[in-house]
């Protein structure tokens, strides 16, 4: 925690994420309007003191929809990365710990997954399923575990023959104990960094899918589908496209800053370089 506070990048990222998470969690208490309330008397109003970010084509308050959209983006990002990280840790640990043919099979699977264009893969899967938040999370999670797997495997391979691991193995520690008490805790730093960076890209993917109409479905608000509406009205309602894009940009930047900052702060090699 100290390391984060001393690193200005990480601190900036952490603050951005904290503010956005706060607004997302307390959205129902902060929002001045019901995000789904259609009001024909207030269609496409430009930003004002009543409607901070204006209103959309159905007269809904954009600021309220943005706050509820934040919930979706963060939820999808975190759950998708959670799924990917769990798969990555399990496969990477098996691969790096047991090596041999299991390792070969898992690494070939990673190669195969990496040679299918990810966005094509995600869209193809979605074509066979019904788009819903849960499906989106699962699909993004199932298509983004390869990086973590390689990372965990590499960490395990390099830690496996270190003295402290060999020592406890000699003392009769079981494989399970070695994995969970020795290897995994010592691999946590790069896993955390890659998960934080992973949330950033998951948020981008989700908003892209929703923008294309294949992610979160209307009337549920998401930053991506507010932008889709914005595209329709781009000639006379700039606020509909400007704010969701900025929100995505700032959120993704927050996670990237935190991730890179953490990497610098926690990794002695890069922090000496600076």
């Amino acid at each position: 925690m100290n390391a984060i506070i001393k690193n200005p990048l990480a601190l900036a990222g952490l603050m951005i994420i904290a503010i956005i998470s706060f607004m997302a969690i307390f959205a129902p208490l902060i929002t001045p309007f019901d995000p789904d309330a259609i009001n024909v008397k207030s269609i496409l109003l430009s930003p004002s003191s009543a409607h901070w970010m204006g209103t959309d084509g159905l007269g809904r308050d954009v600021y309220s929809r943005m706050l509820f959209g934040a919930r979706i983006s963060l939820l999808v990002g975190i759950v998708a990365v959670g799924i990917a990280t769990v798969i990555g840790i399990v496969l990477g640990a098996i691969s790096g710990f047991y090596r041999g043919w299991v390792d070969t099979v898992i690494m070939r699977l990673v190669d195969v997954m990496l040679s299918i264009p990810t966005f094509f893969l995600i869209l193809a899967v979605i074509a066979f399923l019904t788009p819903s938040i849960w499906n989106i999370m699962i699909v993004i999670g199932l298509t983004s575990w390869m990086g973590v797997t390689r990372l965990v495997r590499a960490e395990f391979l390099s830690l496996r023959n270190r003295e402290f691991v060999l020592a406890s193995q000699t003392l009769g520690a079981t494989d399970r104990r070695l994995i969970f008490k020795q290897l995994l805790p010592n691999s946590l730093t790069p896993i955390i960094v890659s998960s934080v960076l992973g949330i950033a890209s998951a948020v981008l993917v989700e908003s892209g899918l929703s923008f294309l109409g294949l992610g979160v479905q209307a009337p549920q608000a998401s930053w991506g589908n507010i932008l889709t509406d914005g595209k329709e009205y781009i000639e006379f309602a700039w606020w509909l496209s400007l704010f969701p894009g900025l929100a995505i940009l700032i959120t993704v930047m927050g996670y990237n800053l935190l991730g890179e900052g953490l990497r610098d702060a926690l990794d002695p090699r890069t922090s000496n370089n600076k």
Partner: protein
Amino acid sequence: MLKYLMNRLLWMVPLLVGISLISFLIMHLAPGDITSTEASFNPKTSEESRQKLRELYHLDKPVIVQYGLWLKRMSTLDFGRSFASHQSPVFWQETDKDGNITKGMIQEALPVTLLINVLSLSLIIAMALPLGVISALTQNKLPDRSITIFVFIGFAIPSFWLALMLMYWTGVSHNWLPISGLHSLGAEKMPWLAQWIDGLKHLTLPILISGLTGLAGISLFVRNGMLDVLHQDYITTARAKGLSENTVVYKHALRNALLPLITIFGLSIPGLIGGSVIAESIFAIPGMGKLFYDAVLMRDFPVIMGILTIGSALTLIGNLLADLAYAWADPRVRKGVVQ
């Protein structure tokens, strides 16, 4: 070199088998058989089209037979006919009785996507190299700091939003550039030079978008690569020999820093191909991405599976080319000294 090439080619076989397995798995992901999800999605689906799907993927046969038939389909690139246009999704063009030629859907779309990607890759190289080098040479000073901020924004900016904003700015409010399609109306009647300029104008925005969003990663990579190399002993030696700073930086350092870039380009191919979905559907450009997007919206499964396969094959070919280029540039790899 030949041995290296053979090795790399053999290496692709298990990958292709893996890809066929994953795509087969996708077809069976849907709960029940895929025909039922399609039906629940689109109320217009008739019993007839469900029957078509069942026939297409032999859903009434045992799973192992289905996979065998799927593997056969994939290896002959025969994915069945598009449900929507009845064209064949992949390359083969056909001539009917009256001599009319119907092209395969990917045959028509692929060159467009390749052109856009090659041009945007060139743009990325042209801009990322100087940015990365400047950044490394002015480490932690103002130019480096500003480029780093630019890189962070580049990483975080959603390409579809950038596309919308540029579209609004250059197309709607200033009317500088066309914002959709590949040609203006009546372009085929223009002289060839005007046609060419017209096409280029239509491509400007899509190329800018994928160029600008891909730029950040590459320039950061060049920067870190340069910093790494500049701290090596042979650079100190070069300086100690009294070589000019320019010779040291551009002849000794940059060339070595650029080597890994070849691999990075190879690795960025699937991202570029996948990314074409967003750019092409926003600007209504008839490439692979748009074709794929439309197919997903219409649940046109033969086209979806065809593009997924071709897209993966392209990635494999791209990686192969990158590896060959690396082996060509670095004798250590070619001779098997380092992996």
